[in-house]
């Protein structure tokens, strides 16, 4: 009886120490999990900082003895891809050239679509959304062949417009759904008020809806940028020889079978290629949380 009671009514200090122990356990678990998932990344970084001789001699887990950026400079400007030895830097420009129109177009069109579908009485909006959902979740490999035929019919197969069009087509469904969901949360009275004020579809979009969409645009941009930047298959097929982006160049570099494989250079090239989306995530985290409609309505 007394034992049961004392177990139930613990002293505050006792309770505090239990809380502390629970926190410790939690952080220990999180730390281990984080470490586990970052092992490949850490190995890549450490290997990329080694010299070629060191890579050949030591274990993958060994830390670099004399860390240096020689492999990084080679990967950037000297490594041989096929017969040209210009490193991976040539692909960077191609990646950027593909990235900018693809993301701007798909995010812009998706925002407009989402706005129309959620805030205006589009006939059969439900059916359109269902179709988009289908488009977003069918594996895109299924659609590659028809798309190749369509692109070559229109005459953009193997060109910059070709790859941009394909990226936009694949980007729009999921981005539209994201915008649609976001805009459904806006108070419908805002649109009504603007209609009374005489503003039309595009004016309301530009003056009222877009200024409130900052955060969701950034979320959509992140998704779109990572998707386009990390894409390999679509670029390989649709971009044409002159527009191959970094990812494709990287694959060729890593896959080159001439001479001894330079693991340190490969790792450095991979890191360089992965860097832009990584930086984007790190820099834009705060936009995921901020509220946007503050002040629009009562209460």
């Amino acid at each position: 009886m007394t034992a049961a009671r004392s177990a139930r009514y613990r002293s505050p200090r006792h309770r505090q120490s239990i809380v502390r122990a629970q926190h410790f356990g939690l952080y220990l678990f999180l730390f281990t999990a984080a470490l586990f998932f970052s092992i490949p990344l850490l190995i890549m970084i450490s290997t990329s900082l080694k010299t070629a001789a060191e890579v050949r001699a030591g274990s993958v887990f060994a830390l670099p003895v004399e860390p240096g950026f020689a492999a990084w400079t080679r990967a950037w400007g000297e490594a041989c891809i096929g017969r040209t030895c210009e490193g991976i830097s040539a692909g960077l420009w191609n990646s950027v050239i593909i990235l900018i129109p693809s993301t701007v177009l798909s995010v812009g069109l998706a925002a407009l679509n989402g706005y129309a579908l959620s805030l205006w009485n589009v006939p059969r909006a439900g059916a359109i959304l269902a179709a988009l959902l289908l488009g977003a979740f069918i594996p895109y490999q299924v659609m590659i062949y028809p798309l190749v035929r369509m692109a070559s019919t229109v005459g953009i197969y193997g060109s910059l417009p070709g790859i941009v069009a394909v990226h936009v087509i694949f980007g729009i469904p999921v981005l539209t759904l994201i915008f649609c969901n976001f805009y459904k949360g806006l108070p419908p009275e805002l649109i009504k008020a603007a209609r009374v004020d005489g503003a039309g579809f595009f004016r309301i979009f530009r003056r009222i809806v877009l200024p409130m969409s900052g955060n969701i645009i950034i979320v959509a941009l992140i998704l779109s940028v990572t998707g386009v930047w990390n894409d390999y298959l679509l670029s390989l097929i649709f971009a044409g020889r002159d527009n191959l982006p970094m990812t494709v160049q990287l694959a060729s570099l890593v896959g080159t079978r001439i001479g001894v494989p330079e693991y340190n250079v490969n790792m450095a090239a991979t890191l360089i290629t992965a860097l832009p989306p990584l930086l984007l995530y790190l820099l834009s985290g705060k936009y995921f949380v901020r509220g946007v409609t503050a002040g629009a309505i009562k209460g």
Partner: protein
Amino acid sequence: MTQITIRNAERSYGALKVLRDVSLDIADQEFAVLLGPSGCGKSTLLSAIAGLDDLQSGEILFDGQNVAGVEPADRDIGMVFQSYALYPSMRVRDNLSFGLETQKLPKADIRKRVEWAADLLQITPLLDRKPSALSGGQRQRVAIGRALVREASLFLFDEPLSNLDAKLRTEMRVEIKALHQRLGATFIYVTHDQVEAMTLATRIAVINGGVIEQFATPEEIYNRPASLFVAGFIGAPPMNLIPAVVRSDAGQAYAQLADGALTIPGLTAADGTEIVVGIRPEDLALCEEGEAADLTGKVVVAELLGADTLVWIEVAGQRIAVRLAPEDADRLDPVVRLRATADRISVFDAASTKRLELTR
């Protein structure tokens, strides 16, 4: 300057009928107030008049022209939304001028109108703030301002003063009344505040469950409510409603109450008809010595309201409010005898809940 006719308007959300066969004739330059309990369809009706919501059936005419398919912007209206709906990304100034810019008004005119509205609504110091940096009452005034700058011929106000303090509300009420007279525009105004309704309206439409119960002048609504609902909704406290049965004695009909009888001049209903007798608290008075009482009851509680005192009296198990002068209320016996002003009594048919006309 707009005369509005609504004919047999129907609107439902799924199975829920929000407007049922609503017909209204609002005259040019009228100040029509929509009054009714929460959820009765006032905002829905306003939306339909603005052209923001389609009706399922029925029609709306502006000056005799059917406006179905006419965009809200082309109806020449200014509207205050119940939820304000201020544009969150614009400063107050831009909120006010947005509609004028779409109308492509000259810059100087826009400036003048915005300043006029800001001055009228006492929001000049707030012009450069975003709506998120305003209090509820300030947001509400910005919303009113956005409607007023349009200088429209029809203004639709959905509870525009609900969030203001008592003093500001009284001031704004006077301003709105003055504006109505000066602008010569038609106003349709939703409110829950009966004082607002009584003082502002040229006519009040009392709505209940999507049905217009009565559309008449404030005096008419107050003195001759058309139905039990109106009688029980208007007035603070509302009319005393006492169930009774019609009896006749030597050809003279009278109302048989639970305890006592009430002679109602002009009552012609058939013997045995169940009715409800409605008497306003101020139409009851204490009996003089030796006078025959209409109602007798025990005093329950007295509430001093300032100018007069509200005395609650229990008559045959029912609480009845009586409005008395404070000095009379102070020296009440525990049991009081009351007399009703005969020609101010309302009578309703208990079955149909409609007013029974008396032949006077």
